[in-house]
């Protein structure tokens, strides 16, 4: 195959850019490992899961409640955001008029651009006092779930919308020719056809929810404990790093890098799952 000189340059350039990105990610992972290594060796990984409490200055390193809190807030958020986001995508694609669909898409896109600290501030001054009236203290697992749900809603809605847009027209026409009602067509033909794309979007949002820091830090209450109800405060892994890193030294600091490492592994697993789903879609 003939390749022009310019093509060659562009190819080499792009390969270098790609290489740099890969290298950066690897460097960050290695850095996390190096910084946490001293405590992994000295204290042992098991104690991070089995210690009864998190008091690094008193030599107790129990991360498990925070791992649980991170997963719980993210799953709670997705349970709230997924139906809303998918519903919004179905509405704008199949029910809304042209103008209404455009306005809705614009608003959802705008919502995706709101900085997380703004969501956090709104949560702290509006949502938390409201929950406090129902059940003190207000800063809680529930508040974190709700704020996160709002934050990832645009991602769910936009990826679901994009997935629905890729469903081949003949499927829709065939369904219509069979005399299916619009509801039956959406529920039994179009949404199932877009399923892998929608699920990939949900996993992507889940990754974002797990990684979110500021908004959660402001509304979750940050008490290290296994919650017995959604009204109890929790601390996520990200909030833990943000709260304590500035003043941590020695083993305390290294153990915060262990929190970071744990989180990175979870998010990486989600990314791989999301990627494999999209792969499956492009081959099917």
């Amino acid at each position, binding site marked *: 195959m003939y390749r022009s000189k310019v093509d060659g340059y562009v190819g080499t350039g792009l390969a270098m850019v790609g290489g740099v990105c890969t290298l950066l990610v690897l460097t960050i992972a290695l850095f996390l490992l190096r910084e946490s290594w001293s405590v992994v060796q000295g204290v042992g990984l098991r104690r991070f899961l089995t210690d009864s409490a998190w008091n690094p*200055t008193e030599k107790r390193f129990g991360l498990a409640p925070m791992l649980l809190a991170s997963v719980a807030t993210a799953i709670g958020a997705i349970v709230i955001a997924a139906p809303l986001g998918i519903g919004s995508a179905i509405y704008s694609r199949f029910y809304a008029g042209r103008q209404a669909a455009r306005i809705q898409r614009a608003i959802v896109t705008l919502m995706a651009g709101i900085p997380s600290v703004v969501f956090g501030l709104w949560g*702290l001054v509006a949502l*938390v006092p409201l929950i406090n009236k129902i059940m*003190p*203290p207000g800063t809680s697992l529930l508040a974190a779930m709700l704020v996160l749900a709002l934050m990832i809603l645009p991602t769910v809605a936009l990826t679901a919308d994009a997935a629905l847009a890729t469903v081949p027209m003949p499927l829709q026409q065939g369904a219509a020719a069979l005399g299916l009602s619009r509801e039956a067509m959406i529920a039994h033909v179009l949404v199932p056809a877009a399923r892998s794309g929608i699920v990939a979007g949900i996993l992507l949002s889940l990754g974002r929810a797990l990684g979110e820091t500021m908004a959660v830090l402001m509304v979750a*209450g940050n*008490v290290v404990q296994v919650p017995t109800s959604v009204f109890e*405060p929790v601390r996520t892994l990200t909030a833990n790093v943000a709260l304590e890193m500035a*003043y941590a*030294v020695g083993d305390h600091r290294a153990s915060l890098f262990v929190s970071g490492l744990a989180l990175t592994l979870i998010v990486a697993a989600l990314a791989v799952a999301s990627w494999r789903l999209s792969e499956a879609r492009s081959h099917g």
Partner: protein
Amino acid sequence: MLIDRRMFFIGAVALSTSTRAQTTDLTGRLVITGSSTVAPLVLEIGKAFEKRHPRVRIDVQTGGSSRGVADARSGLADIGMASRALFDNERDLFGTPIARDGICLVAHKTNAVSDLTDEQVKALFTGKAADWQEVGGKPGRVTIVNKAEGRSTLELFLQHYKLKNSDIKASVVIGDNAQGIKTIVGNPGAIGYVSIGSAEFEVSQGTAIKLVSSGGVVPSSAAVQAGTFPLSRPLTLVTKQAPTGLAAAFIAFARSSDMHPLVKEQFFVPLQS
């Protein structure tokens, strides 16, 4: 355009003559290590000092008060930083306070309680008193707002009330003072503690909080300054001997009234001038 360039030229000349006039004596590098409470303030003072003496480099590293004292003694650092006065067994060293740090209890403005004994504070923070009624307030659940581990305000609080962090039954754990105050504003049953400087600032801005006195002592920057407020401590620069040369110039600069705005910006209280 011409005017712009000429003014720039005049400015540059003025700048170079003024700096030249002041750099005749001071050159070199100061290594300052220690308390992470004092470090942000010293970093800011260091920047101002470097601006005034461009041939001086100030190198600030954190690592806790004990490292500051140890480094000053071993000579690893020219100046150590400690968020406390020197202990009796450290009297061989030389400590100079540059500011004071004070914290106070803060509750929602509508809270009926305005004074708590030390015992009551302990009962509240360890969860033994879970309702405001138990300490003489209106009925309502108590929400304890605690600081995250490693913060100097937490350290000072625990030290004063002789508590361990694991004893405290917190409902909310916060990072900085502003977040704590916002949390208390949104929760009428909440009580926490923040730097006095930030609490006074918020009250002056009309924020719905109030300063709760502890054991009859009314918290104020003035009381911290006078050294009569119990929940306070000096921020100290430590040297091996009485400071000389560059270190002496820096410490004098840090204590000068020019630095008071920087001290207040970090929510510390300036020394009496």
